[in-house]
């Protein structure tokens, strides 16, 4: 919960990690990749305010106490959602697995939600595992990593027939929030891993599922926006947008927010800190304080009001995850439509 100038915000952090990327967890022979991955993340931390930077050693493996302090005590987060990321090809016990994240969920059951994962390349065994995970952890969502390595394969697409079976299984199991990583990545070598056309395809075929595109397809935000405009069940996950741009590149941040507000709309944008890449505190405080610059360059972007910020910081995610929000944080319900919906049919000619 965050209070500022008489306004109160219910804060849901849509993208959290509790990872172990310390050398003890590196897979023998794959050290360069395990090391490269976490050092790349660490460089991204450098885009936040200097006083929030951590030394690499702490960044590789932080404690439960760090997590609780940074997220709950200092970070204003009421409910956090773990996006489990396995990467077992490089990290022996995984980077941050559902099992590990769930240990924290058990301790803070009202404050944390852990999402699972699946990979269509695991076939029947994967479907069985998903079913077990769903029952054991009461899954409401999954995080999918289409660029992940698996036994020599350099990635996969949601369009593949096998993916349809997993999505059908999700629907049957009541897993309705499908988070898809479309953002900065290292692999695969031979695919454009930012290509969001596969999300477009499944969003149409599975209208009852919600597809949250993590990192809004950066650095291909235009492809994401054109797609999201046409798909009512596609959401923008703002991890990296706020953490990576708001402090380091404020004018670009304002442009990206303006474009997202125009094409996607404030009802379909979800804030996320991407902790531990960035701490939540400065992001929440900065975002609540943020206003778009006044110059003419920004004049025809939709304006973001305090109510809009309340939605983005927590109310939108609370709806997707059925989180009870006390009345004092609610805003009067109103039908919000993205400004560009009527332009959707013209997008294909871009």
């Amino acid at each position: 919960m965050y209070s500022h100038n008489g306004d109160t915000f219910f804060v849901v952090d849509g993208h959290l990690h509790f990872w172990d990327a310390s050398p003890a967890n590196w897979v023998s022979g794959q050290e360069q990749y395990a090391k490269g991955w976490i050092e790349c993340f660490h460089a991204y931390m450098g885009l936040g305010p200097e006083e929030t930077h951590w030394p690499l050693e702490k960044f590789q493996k932080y404690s439960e106490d760090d997590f609780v302090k940074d997220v709950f005590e200092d970070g204003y987060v009421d409910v956090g959602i773990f996006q489990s990321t396995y990467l077992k090809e490089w990290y022996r016990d995984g980077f941050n697995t559902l099992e590990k994240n769930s240990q924290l969920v058990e301790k803070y059951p009202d404050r944390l939600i852990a999402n699972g994962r699946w990979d269509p390349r695991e076939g029947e065994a994967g479907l069985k595992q998903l079913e077990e995970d769903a029952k054991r952890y009461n899954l409401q969502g999954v995080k999918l990593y289409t660029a992940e390595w698996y036994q020599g394969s350099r990635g996969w697409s949601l369009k593949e027939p096998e993916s349809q079976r997993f999505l059908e299984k999700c629907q049957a199991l009541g897993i309705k929030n499908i988070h898809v990583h479309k953002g900065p990545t290292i692999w695969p070598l031979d695919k454009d891993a930012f290509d969001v056309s596969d999300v477009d395809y499944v969003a149409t075929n599975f209208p009852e599922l919600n597809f949250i595109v993590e990192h809004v397809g950066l650095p291909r935000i235009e492809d994401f926006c054109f797609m999201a405009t046409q798909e009512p069940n596609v959401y923008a996950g703002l991890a990296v947008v706020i953490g990576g741009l708001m402090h380091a590149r404020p004018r670009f941040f304002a442009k990206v927010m303006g474009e997202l507000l125009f094409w996607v709309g404030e009802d379909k944008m979800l804030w996320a800190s991407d902790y531990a890449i960035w701490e939540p505190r400065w992001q929440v405080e900065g975002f609540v304080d943020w206003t778009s610059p006044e110059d003419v360059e920004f004049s025809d972007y939709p304006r973001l009001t305090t109510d809009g910020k309340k939605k983005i910081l927590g109310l939108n995610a609370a709806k997707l995850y059925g989180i009870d929000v006390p009345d004092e944080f609610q805003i009067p319900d109103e039908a919000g439509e993205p400004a560009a919906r009527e332009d959707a049919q013209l997008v294909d000619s871009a």
Partner: protein
Amino acid sequence: MNTRARVLEALSEVHDPELDEPITSLGFVTSCEVSPSGDVEILLRLPTPQCAPNFAYLMAADARNVVRRLPDVGRIEVRLEDHYTGKEINAAIARGEGFAAAFPGETDDDQLDALRELFQRKALVARQARLCEALLADGATPVQVTALRVADLPDDGDARRCLELRGQLGIGCDPNAPAFVAPNGEPLAADELTLWLRKARLVRTSLEVNGSICRSLLQIRSRRGAELEEVGT
């Protein structure tokens, strides 16, 4: 102009395919040495050791190709520094081979060409957006803007780059051709201009944001590199 200056000038023609900015102004060229006998050694450093290998390869290969066209140049060595696939890419470049040869069985060159073309089209949209916005800000109407011919374009960097990209994409750019075109080469109609510009501005923003993130990460990388050197580790 000495050989080194000519080499640097040639390198300024090499663009990051994803950002559509010269690798020289992005700060990716960390060293350029020419020996008395004309041998050239170029070092490239990208914003992170994990920058996409496909784009990394294209920049290194393009750098070698533009320098090879210069007279009085001997042996050319282009090397990516501190990149996780640098060894493979450097070896392929040294042999004059394609991307697929750097990573046998992992990719093929057709996909790389398609990716490059996709980004050339994005770059063309973004550059045209900048030109168009400037014209409209100066008071031109959509009808006037879409009636312009190539010969009417200003003599500036964006316009020159547009024509270069059109040439590479096989879109006609003789003086009488339309000044502004859709990515498929079709002329833009006046009544489409506002919506086209709305979309084009997003493409432009996307490219510019990516460029800014890359610059920030490169700064962080240089700063950390300097700190490590200072403490002698």
